Structure formats: C-alpha cells, structure tokens
C-alpha cells in the first residue's frame, strides 16, 4: 500500500457550488421550464387496481376547444428493447406498458390516456370526457393473496424465471425465484445450541422526494426531440423515450433539470414518453407535472415484504447456520429488489452454512423502483432483529456478537466474491468505544443496535475538464447532482490541478454535451464519476506540462509538477515555475485550448458497512415513540466533502426511521391507496428527529485513487432493525411487522400486559 496522500482540498468543507441558487430559489427544477407555444398535459389514471380495458373513446375529449392532442396506449408502439443498467436490465416493454396501459390496468393510478391542451384546466376537463369502459377484476392486494389458491393472475403469460421452486409451472404471480447457498444447512443447524426463527413483514414505502416528477418535451417535424426533466439518469430517459415513443435515440436530447431528490425513484420514466408522444402529435411543446397523489400512486415505491429468517448459533455466539425465505412485492411488473436483499442479508457475517430463497411477486400495486440500497433494508430488518434475539438469549453484548462473526478482508461474501479491505470491524469497534453505547437510559427508553451493508456500484462514467485562459476550470459530467457531487467533483479537479476549489465550476451536462455516463445511483457518482474527473484533470495537467515544455523548449518528461505549478528542470536558463493561470494565459500561442477528458468502466466498487445505535422512548399508555438519540457509524473509504458525507448518513437514517415508525402504503380491500399525500403518509418532519450524530470511519478502497467508497445508500439499511431492537429493549416486545406506529405498539403492549410473556 502506498503512503496516505496529503490532500489540500479533499477532506475540507467548502460551500457547495449549487447552494446559493438553491436557497435563493433561482435553481431551475423539473417544473420550472416554460417554452414558447407550450401546452399542458394531463394524465387520466385508472380508478381500478385491476381491470381489463374494454374500450377507450377519446372523441368527446378531442372535441373540447383548446385540446391539441389525446393519446392512449394505441399511440405507442410495442417495444421489446432493454436498457442495460448494471446487473439489472430495464425491460422497456414493461416500462412502456407502465407508462400507458395497453390492455389491462394493473394498479390504482395506472395511466390510461393523456391530453395536451392550451391550459391545464382544459386538459383536465377533456380527460374527464374520455370514456373508458373497464372490465373490473379482483385485485391482488398483497403477497399472501398473490400466492394463495385461485389467486387472480396479473400477467397470463408470466413464467417464473430462475431457480425453479416447488410451485413452478402454470399461471403464476411469481416472476422469479433465486437461491443462494453454501455448505450444509441441516448439518449447520444440527450443530447449533440455539436456533431462532421469526417471520417479518414490511409495507410498501415511498422515497418521498420533495420534487414531484415533471418534464417538458418537444418534437420537431424532422423527428428531433428535446426533453427537459427531473431525472437521475438522462441517458436512460433518452433511450427509454426513444424506444417507447418510437424515435431514433440519435434524435433525442435529454436535458436534466436541477433535481429535488430521487433516492432511486427518478431513474425510470413516467411522464417523459407521454409528453413526447403528445408533443409529436400536437407539434407543440408539452409540459406535464405530477401532483403528490400521482407520485404516490403511480411512481415506484419500494416493495412490501414477507421475510422468514432462521439463525443457528453456538453457545459462545458463533453463528453456524442460516436459512431464509424472502418474498418481495414487485408491484405490477416483475422486478423487485429481492435478489439484492438475499445477497445483502448475511453480508456482515461469516456463516459457513446457509440457504436463502428469494421470490419476486407481482401484485396490483405500482411497479416498484429503486429506493436507496434497494432490497437491503428489508432484509436487514429481519436478520438484525434475529441477531438481536440471539444476543439476548446468549447474554452476549450485541456489538461483541457481531464482532465475533464479522467478515473481514479475504473472507468470501455470501453473494460470491472475496472481500477486499472492508471496514466492518472498524465501525463495530468505533461503536463499542463511543460514549453513546454506555450512556444511561431513562424511563421507558430502550437502545437498539444494527448493522447494514450495500455493494455500491461502479459502471460507466465520463468527464471533461476544460481550462480557461484565466486558469479557472470547468468540469462536465453526465450525472445529475442529488447528493452534493458537483462540489465533490470540483474538489477532486482542484486537488489534481492545484487551483483553488472556488475556481472550478462543476456542471451537469445533457446527453449531447457530456460523454456517456450511467445513472446517478448505486452510490457510484463520487466513486466512479469522481475517478473520471480525477483522470480528466490529470489529462489536463499532462497537457499543461507539455505546454510548459514547449515554452521552456525542454522535453515534457523533464517538466515537474508541484502545488499547481509546472517546475522547470534544474539548470534551465531564465525559466521559473509557472502556475496554471500563467500557462493557460499562453494556451493560444502554445497549441490552443486545453480540454482534459476521461471515460472509464469500473466493474467493481468498494462495498461498505454501517452500524447504528438508536435510543428510543415509548409512551406506554399511547404507544407513541420518539427517537431520543441516534448515532451512525460508517466506513466511507475517504470522505471527499465530510459535510455531505454526514448529510448522506443523516438523510439515510431519517428515511429509515420514517420507514420504521410511521410510513406505509395503506390500501382499501379493493386496492385503492388511501393515504396518497404527506398528511397521511407520515414521513418524519424535522422536529420528529434528534440531531443524528455521525462517525466517519475511513478504510481506504484500493479501487479508487483517494480511497473513496459509495456513501449514500448504506445509511438507510440499519435503521429499521436498530429502531425495532430499541423498541424491543424499551418494551420487552419483539415487533416483527413495520411500521411501529402508535396503535400497533399500544396493542402489543396491552396484549403483553394481559398475557405475561417471557421478556
């Protein structure tokens, strides 16, 4: 290993480049664009969770004065294309059908038609005039119904993919089944002194980004189209729109707006193909903005789940066997993150024998989308609750138990590869040493502990670093900035060039103006795109050295580089070191503009762990609980901008606490979502949470020049279990179903008081 590098900018906390525009309201988000001649689009949505579309009559809507275009599923071609996205491919046939139902509506809120008119009121009125005849079918409202006898079938042609299970064959709602195994589970359990088995359930939850989906699109007579939208993946939007609407991707330019949160939910398209198809038909730009109710009903939440976990341990705490079955709701189309859940659930532990089976189940609810470490929080809730039970049964400190079983460098991860350097033991030790772990608890308070894991992603990234004649620089990448990545990228360019970070402008390019770049997701931007920025800045620096060599009339190899200055070789006459600004001032005379560029594919990333301590207080008479103190420990590899790393950790915790305590999709028996708004979908508000304490642990990732690991997803993994374990500590009750809302908690407290159970 090389000696740790002395950084000048990396690790400092400059003000973010996009901050002032955001706090002054100048930043332009998805709904902020207005183009000449613009029409307003409105989407008509299914009132039924499951229905066959018998007919759609748009005649009356088209006759409304001011209406310029009406589209239904018939206006979009059937596509079989896919888009590569890491390991998972996006099936565009499903996405196309999700964007606008073709033959069946599969959830309450599924789009069936769209209207473009001169005003939004006219568009809404015209949409109300569209006559849709439905043949209403029984909805599949959850996993149990989906798998039960005589269950209604969402997709008659669906066949279970993957490792065949016992119930393979025939019409099914199981889209796929996966197995993961090692060793001999039966022998492992036979060896165990203690076996704990529990079944857990979690409801669907939404990312809850503050900015609803919004876009504006135009399409010329020549087939050239522009889409402005709020997205995490402009290149995905480009390819998806082209395939779904039937355009040549070469003719589609996607311009990402400033983005008001995504958390994985703004990768797939919802409105963009509709705006584009309407714009093509109307020959006018069309803008569509979702309301919050549509965001809840018709964009991708993450799965509701049922997870059964069984762990076996020796009396000394060694975990010897594990088995688990996971069923995740995919929503209306295949594709829940159940596979990732299965792969993450034992990532922290050396388990010699395990067997995991994972089912992807379609139900009449919105198609799930990525949500921060997709699949992992649900699985961690189950496993970390059972590990907590084992620690209690065996009377071993929960951190000690995890340390005893912790995976380390060289161990084989349950999902396959051998771990490189990982910081699991380091975060566990940091947690054990932290004053929080020993702080006294008050009345009705409890403390919970849990760990969490996420793979993190690498994938494709490109960057350019353009030098200006005044010695400033502009960075362009294709990653919308959802977590402060522009600031981090500017810092990396400044570090390599040796110019002040304030002299670097960091930009998000559109699909024509930046090299191909995969989505902002998988905690990959600071890592993979950051690496591209570093290399592009190195490329610019090498060009500067060459210019200095030209000026000094020496060979490039002889030119040194120190602290942002080219250093002439010893003994060069009349030559003194030149700064970046001095060199760029002479660019025209020495060969023209300087643009550094880099493109790369990072096949792997640095996996990461987090460990959380949660203190909670419960009101035993009302079941209402309050998070009293919370500390998150995380191996981040290298914190480029520590404030934004801490912000990611706090944000993940806040979302995880919401998931644990109050958030849930509430459905009526006929599949209608009853709480499609922030009043009744209870995300935490600022005053609900204490200041979330953060402890950054840095175990360098050898795959990155600075040691960076992905940061954004890990922190949402432990909170569900950390909160539930704290609730167990406070009440003596093991909760296996989320959310831990006051009525559920009070009911359990009253039941426990009525029939005393062993604590």
């Amino acid at each position, binding site marked *: 290993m090389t000696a740790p590098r002395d950084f000048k900018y990396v690790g400092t906390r400059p003000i973010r480049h996009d901050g002032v525009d955001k706090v002054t309201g100048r930043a332009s988000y998805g709904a902020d664009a207005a183009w000449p001649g613009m029409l307003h689009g409105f989407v008509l949505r299914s009132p039924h969770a499951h229905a066959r579309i018998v007919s759609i009559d748009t005649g009356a809507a088209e006759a409304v004065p001011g209406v310029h275009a009406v589209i239904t599923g018939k206006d979009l071609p059937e596509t079989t294309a896919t888009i590569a996205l890491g390991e998972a491919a996006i099936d565009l046939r499903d996405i196309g059908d999700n964007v606008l139902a073709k033959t069946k509506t599969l959830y309450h809120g599924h789009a069936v038609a769209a209207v473009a008119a001169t005003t939004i009121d006219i568009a809404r009125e015209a949409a109300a005039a569209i006559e849709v005849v439905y043949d209403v079918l029984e909805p599949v409202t959850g996993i149990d119904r989906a798998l039960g006898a005589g269950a209604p079938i969402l997709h008659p042609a669906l066949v279970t993919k993957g490792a065949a299970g016992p119930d393979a064959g025939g019409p099914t709602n199981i889209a796929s089944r996966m197995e993961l195994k090692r060793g001999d589970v039966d022998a492992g359990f036979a060896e165990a002194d203690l076996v704990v088995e529990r079944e857990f359930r979690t409801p669907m939850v939404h990312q809850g980004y503050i900015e609803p989906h919004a876009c504006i699109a135009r399409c010329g007579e020549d087939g050239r189209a522009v889409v402005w939208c709020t997205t995490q993946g402009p290149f995905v939007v480009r390819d998806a729109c082209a395939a779904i609407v039937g355009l040549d991707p070469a003719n589609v330019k996607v311009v990402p707006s400033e983005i008001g949160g995504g958390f994985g939910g703004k990768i797939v398209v919802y409105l963009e193909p509709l705006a584009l198809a309407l714009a093509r038909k109307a020959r006018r730009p069309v803008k569509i903005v979702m309301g919050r109710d549509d965001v809840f009903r018709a964009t991708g939440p993450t799965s509701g789940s049922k997870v059964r976990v069984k762990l076996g341990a020796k009396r000394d705490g060694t975990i010897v066997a594990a088995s688990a079955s996971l069923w995740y709701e995919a929503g209306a189309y295949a594709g829940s993150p159940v596979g990732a859940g299965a792969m993450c659930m034992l990532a922290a532990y050396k388990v010699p024998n395990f067997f995991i089976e994972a089912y992807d189940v379609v139900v009449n609810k919105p198609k799930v989308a990525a949500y921060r470490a997709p699949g992992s929080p649900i699985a961690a809730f189950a496993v970390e609750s059972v590990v907590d039970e084992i620690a209690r049964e065996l009377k071993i400190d929960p951190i000690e138990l995890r340390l005893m079983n912790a995976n380390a460098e060289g161990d084989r991860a349950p999902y396959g590869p051998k771990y490189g350097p990982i910081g699991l033991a380091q975060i566990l030790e940091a947690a054990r040493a932290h004053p929080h772990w020993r702080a006294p608890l008050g009345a009705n308070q409890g403390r919970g502990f849990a760990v969490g894991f996420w793979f993190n992603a690498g994938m494709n990234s490109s960057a350019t670093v353009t030098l200006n004649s005044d010695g400033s620089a502009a960075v362009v990448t294709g990653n919308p900035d959802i977590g402060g990545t522009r600031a981090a990228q500017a810092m990396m360019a400044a570090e390599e060039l040796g110019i002040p970070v304030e002299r670097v402008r960091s930009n998000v390019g559109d699909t024509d103006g930046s090299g191909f770049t995969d989505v902002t997701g998988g905690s990959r931007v600071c890592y993979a795109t950051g690496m591209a920025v570093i290399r592009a800045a190195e490329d610019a620096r090498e060009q500067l050295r060459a210019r200095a060599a030209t000026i000094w009339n020496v060979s490039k190899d002889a030119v040194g580089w120190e602290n942002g200055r080219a250093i002439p070789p010893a003994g060069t006459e009349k030559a003194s070191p030149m700064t970046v600004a001095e060199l760029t001032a002479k660019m025209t005379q020495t060969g023209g503009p300087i643009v550094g560029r880099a493109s790369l594919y990072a096949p792997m990333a640095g996996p990461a762990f987090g460990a959380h301590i949660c203190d909670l207080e419960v009101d035993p008479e009302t079941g209402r609980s309050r998070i009293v103190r919370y500390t998150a420990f995380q191996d981040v590899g290298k914190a480029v901008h520590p404030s934004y790393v801490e912000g990611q950790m706090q944000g993940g915790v806040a979302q995880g606490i919401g998931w644990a*305590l109050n958030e849930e999709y*509430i459905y009526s028996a006929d599949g209608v979502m009853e709480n499609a708004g922030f009043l009744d979908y209870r995300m935490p*508000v600022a005053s609900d949470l204490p200041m979330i304490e953060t402890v950054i642990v840095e175990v360098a990732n050898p795959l990155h020049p600075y040691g960076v690991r992905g940061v954004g997803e890990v922190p949402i993994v432990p909170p569900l279990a950390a909160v539930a374990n704290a609730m167990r500590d406070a009440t003596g009750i093991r909760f296996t179903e989320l959310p831990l809302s*006051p*009525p559920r908690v*009070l*009911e359990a407290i009253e039941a426990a008081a009525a029939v005393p159970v062993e604590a």
Partner: protein
Amino acid sequence: MVAIRYETPRSVSEAVRLMAADPGARVLAGGTDLLVQFRTGVRQPSAFVDIKRIPELMSIAIDAHGLRLGAATPAAVIGEHAELRRLWPGLAESVRLIGSTQIQGRGSVGGNLCNASPAADTTCALIVNRAECVIAGPNGERTVPVEAFSIAPGRTVLQPGELLVAIRVPRPAARTSDAYLRLIPRTEMDIAVAGAAASVTLDAAGLCTTARVAIGAVAPTALRVPAAEQALVGSRLDEASLKRAADAASAAARPIDDKRGTTAYRRTVAGVLTRRAAAIAAARAREQGSHP
C-alpha cells in the same frame, strides 16, 4: 373554465351583503383549509370573500368580562399574546399546535371552527372555556355556544349569508385553569388522532368545584363529557378521580376506524389524554392559588 371573484370587504355588513348575494361564495380567512380544498377540487366557490381586511375580525381584546377574539386573527398573533396565554394557557396551546409556523401565520380560530373538522384542535379548548360564537347575518347578530356550533363533519349552524365574527370567552374564575393535549404520531403537520381539553376550578382548599371536559377526533363533532366532569367535581383531582374521568371519556368516545387510527386505539387514547389534560389543568390552577 370559470373566473372566480375575489372580494375584500372592509366591514362585517359589507361581507354579509356579499355572502348573502352569492350562495356560491365562500369566506376566506387564512385559507389553510379552504385553498387546499380548492386546489384538490373538493370545493369550487364562485367567489372568495377575504375577511382579513375587516379590523374587528383581526383583533384580540381582553377586558373584565373576558376575551373577544376576532374570527380571522392568525394563530401566530394569538400565540404571542401574553395576557391570553396567561389566562387561557390551554386555549393558547391548542392554537399553537395548529400545523406549523407557516400555517400559523395564516390560519385562524374562526377558520378552524367553520371548517368543522372533528379533529380541529381549538374546538375542545374553546368548549371547556365556555366560548361562544358571535355570528353576523342578514338578520343581525346571534350567539351560539361553541359546543353547538358544529353539527356534523364539515357542517356548522351557519346559515346562508352568515359569518362568524368573533369568539367570546368569559374571564376565568379564581383558581381556574385549562389544558389541551392531542395525540399525533409525529410532532407537527399532522391531524389529531384524538384530543382532549379540560378546565377545572378549585376552591381555596384545593377541591374541584367545577370542571369541563371535551374530547375531539373521536366522534362526528367534538364532545363535551359530562360524566368525566362529574368524576372530577368534588374531588381533589387525585389519581382515582382522574382515572374515573379517563374512563368516562373513553366510554363517551364514538370513534371511527380509519387510516389515522383504529376505534379501540382512539377510545383508549381519548381517556389517557383526558386524564393528563385534567392533571395539567389542576396543576396550573393550584399554581394560581399559590400566587394570587
């Protein structure tokens, strides 16, 4: 699409005239209920009659008889009124619970009452303080006790052309105080799952001579609970009598089962909050007794 008129009367009589002339018109106070309902298509008024430019609807006056609260006075102004907070701490805390800082900058007690949500936070605190609604209409002025003002969710005794002008609250007797508590799963920006207010008067010896108890969000309208009041009167507001009051409140509750809470849960919590509110009111009243 139809145009919506926006009217800004400067006097109560002008507002009454505007309201009487157009049955589709709606009074606009802070708009924190009305504009949300308008945006979601629940209400489509033909005109907004903005009452915030009528001085007597935007004022707080306290004299020997008590409080006269202009119906459209923003919650934030009420919450900062020191004398009001001293005399009716429970009423003030119910006002200060509404929404958030932003919502309180606009929302009013009049709007809270006229919107007639069973979960409205100020209703219970007003009822236990014997508050009355002063109503102006085409046929002059009339008064209605707050407990009779709402008749069903979203419905009040207001007749076409009528307007809530003010809320009058009599000055509390010596050694009297009040309290209001509500339960929401979060800390703000939520709707009460259950709420309870209590007002108690103690004699010099610390015995409770009068008590008023009201519970919210557990029936179509806020309920006064005479049985809970009887459990308190004559007692020293000790644990046993508080418990009896709690049981009476739970028994009186007629909650619904919905996404915000189950019937059983609301019933239990109505009792718990009643007991706690009565205990707080008692402590406040005792405090007054010790500093006359």
